[in-house]
């Protein structure tokens, strides 16, 4: 049953303030509020605003994690202020004081308000964010498979809050990266059987050096997303459809690199760094290193390799000969490959549909990539 009312407690909020008109640097501002522990950090901030200082700047509207306005960082982690309980935020703080800051990767306008237009929305516009279906429309609805609409609902559920953008490590290094939110939006069209330019979209996003292959698999966006949109998962789905289904071999070598990683692990059980570049550029086999393109790439990446050895990130022996693991372990790894590769169709895990991890098996939805092209 519903949790019984718990008495209000005191919570201290330490907010990052910045007044662009003052000419002064950002500073910390503390207020203590009194609320029930399961109330949200946003309610705490609103109480501080109402009682102590109305000039605290934060965008907010629905209070129910649906409008996407109140993206902030709480104790360093991105999320929605309305979607984070005060007691949990206090428990995850370093000193019992809840720290609230503006999101990262976007310029701060005032206090906790960031410029989403300059980063987030610009990137969304990059992916041609509308359905392309210019032909004559049917009199009624398009007939499409039931699963396809449930499937794209996961990305439709994105509320554009920017939490994933805030913590994207790839974007931190390469601000030009299209990024998790916009690429998840791209999947919303690629996965929509009514869209007429799926292949064009995939070619575009594969060939763009800051497109789908610029993601580094760090999972930060998956953790940050308050709506289980799983942006990285959507990027990986774009890659699978682009590479495995549409056979798009991009000039950035993203797809071949991915295939090489898969083959190397199958062959050696672990990544073999020295083989990686030759195979990615020269062809996905042991002979790859004799290909001229591989030689050129190898030469150009020598400085990186040397720096890696110098900094002891990798030993010279491993850099040249690779890792080796016991035979039975290698067999076990290869068994995984056999299991996955022997499936008649690819399982695309959709958390929106399956809801809870523990029940994945009963509700998995298999969605073939080309299934139900526009009808």
């Amino acid at each position, binding site marked *: 049953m519903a949790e019984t009312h718990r008495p209000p407690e005191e919570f201290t909020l330490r907010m990052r303030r910045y007044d662009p008109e003052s000419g002064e640097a950002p500073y910390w501002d503390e207020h203590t509020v009194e609320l029930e522990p399961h109330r949200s950090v946003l309610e705490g901030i609103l109480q501080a605003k109402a009682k102590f200082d109305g000039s605290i700047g934060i965008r907010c509207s629905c*209070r129910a994690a649906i409008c996407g306005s109140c993206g902030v960082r709480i104790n360093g982690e991105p999320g929605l202020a309305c979607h984070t*309980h005060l007691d949990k935020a206090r428990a995850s703080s370093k000193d019992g004081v809840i720290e609230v800051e503006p999101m990262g990767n976007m310029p701060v306008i005032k206090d906790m*308000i960031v410029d*989403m*237009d300059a980063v987030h929305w610009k990137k969304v516009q990059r992916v041609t964010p509308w*359905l392309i279906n210019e032909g004559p429309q049917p009199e009624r*609805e398009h007939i499409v498979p039931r699963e396809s*609409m449930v499937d794209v609902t996961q990305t439709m559920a994105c509320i554009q809050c920017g939490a994933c953008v805030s913590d994207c490590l790839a974007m931190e290094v390469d601000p030009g990266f299209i990024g998790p939110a916009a690429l998840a939006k791209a999947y919303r069209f690629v996965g929509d059987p009514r869209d007429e330019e799926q292949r064009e979209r995939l070619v575009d996003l594969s060939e763009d050096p800051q497109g789908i292959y610029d993601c580094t698999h760090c999972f930060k966006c998956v953790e940050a997303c308050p709506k289980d949109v799983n942006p990285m998962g959507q990027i990986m789905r774009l890659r699978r459809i682009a590479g495995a289904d549409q056979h798009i071999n991009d000039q950035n070598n993203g797809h071949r690199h991915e295939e090489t990683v898969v083959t190397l692990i199958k062959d050696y059980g672990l990544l073999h760094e020295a083989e990686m570049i030759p195979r990615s550029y020269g062809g996905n086999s042991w002979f790859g290193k004799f290909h001229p393109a591989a030689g050129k790439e190898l030469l150009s990446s020598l400085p990186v390799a040397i720096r890696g050895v110098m900094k002891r990130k990798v030993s010279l022996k491993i850099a040249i000969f690779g890792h080796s693991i016991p035979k039975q372990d290698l067999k076990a790894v290869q068994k995984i490959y056999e299991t996955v590769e022997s499936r008649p169709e690819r399982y695309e895990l959709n958390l*929106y549909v399956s809801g809870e991890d523990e029940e994945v098996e009963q509700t998995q939805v298999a969605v073939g990539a080309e299934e139900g092209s526009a009808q």
Partner: protein
Amino acid sequence: MPSHDVLIIGAGLAGQRAALAAAQAGASVAIVSKVHPVRSHSVAAAGGINAAINVADDWKSHAYDTVKGSDFLGDQDAIEIMCSEAPKEVMHLEHMGVTFHRNDDGELDLRAFGGASMKRTAYVADITGQAILHVLYEQLMKHHEQIDRYEEWFVTSLLQDDSGCCRGVVARDVRSGRMEVLKAKNVILACGGAGQVYSPTTNALIVTGDGIAQAYRIGAPLMDMEMVQYHPTTLVENGLLITEGARGEGATLLNSEGERFMEKYAPNKMELASRDVVSRAEQTEILEGRGVGAHGEGIYLDITKVPRKRTLEALREIVNIGKDFAGVDITREPIMIRPGQHYIMGGVKTDVNGATSIEGLYAAGEVACVSVHGGNRLGANSLLDTLIFGRRAGEHAAARAASMGMPASDDTQLREDVATIDAIIARPRTGRRVSEIKQELGETMNQYVAVYRDQEGLDKAHEVVKRLKEESESAYIDDKGTVFNQDVLGAIELGYMLDCAESIVVAAIERTESRGAQFRTDFPERNDDEWLKHIDISLNGNGPQVSYSPVKITQWQPEERKY
């Protein structure tokens, strides 16, 4: 000075739909919104959109259900337009890209909703409003050359020329604090309702009655303002909405005795009776001591009867709301809800093209009152209302613009608004805080102008509102800056809210009968002889003045309303 054929205030469903329609008709269009368009409150509409698209359905059945739902106060000519145009509009949305969920044959799936005689609610899980809003915004991005966007601009006044025609707005760029006149041949208000007049409410913090008050202040009459909808299922914890879709999927309501009490109040439709009926039933159970929870203040909504997989797929948002805001897994245990303020049927009085009584000023969506909802709106008719009348207003305004010249420039109001804002910022800290007044207003309205009303309570509310209006004149704020000064906008919004509250209370006092959402315990019967008419509220000098307008009846005569 920027100028446009059609200037739309508000970028929720009504506003964006109006913008697309006006642009399609060839007008130069701009859309102004105090928040980024996808933050608009339409995003919170969960359950779906009604349209008679099933081949076995008929728009007349939809229209009759709507008339009955309105307790015969809805204008039937407008309802006929809305319901007959609904199927085409839903198909148009589908073609634009809305990801409506499908049945096993790949056609649009339909779910059951309150007050409907058959399944006719198209949906996207329980994020229908969000899905439509985001798809419309996709279209705004696509048509960015025809539609200018003023995102995060706050409107402070509607402009009128000497002959009383609306000629644009004064607005403040929230980010820079710069004030500007935006000239226009036509202005369409599409900036939502006034839910923040109540506390608690399911409505977002931005829903502060801006458009209703702005129109009222320049002389446009408001209509049906006494009709305030309490949604039957809002979270006891904090007033958040649990979609009617839950009951549409089969969830039941239980009192403290474990009884499915709707049997007593609506034996045929049970939990899917119209919202006013279900909310009153719940309130009666609570008042008679059969509520649940520590203080008997709630009712159980039991969703466990819906298959778990179906709940996770089609009601995922409320699974999260239950988990995040009440600590309840709704797929395994009931959740505590109660009636909560949700929607305002009333608004700026318009005709079926969205035109108000002021030339050049249109209104569509919750800000407007056509009136298609009359005394009580059916679930999933609000999205439809916004889209149908948003489109019609956009088309009509574009056509009107084609035959007229751009109005002359005038800075008088701009200078006045700049001075008003400077004065608010300069107020000494001697009065009350804006936030305090807002809180008292919300609690007062929720206590006296709620599901059950009577003369004594309404009079009390009236006095409080009048006092708060005075206090608001000197209410102070903290933020003295220009960049993102949300504080000063809050003070302006408070003024809007107080105007809305006053007209709600005055209309509720005026209507001495019970109809739809207005239930007077001192006048418990519907009285068609005297009250089959709309109450109009206009500004006369400094205060509200009451007049009446007839209900338009086309084919459905009033009859006893039973579910």
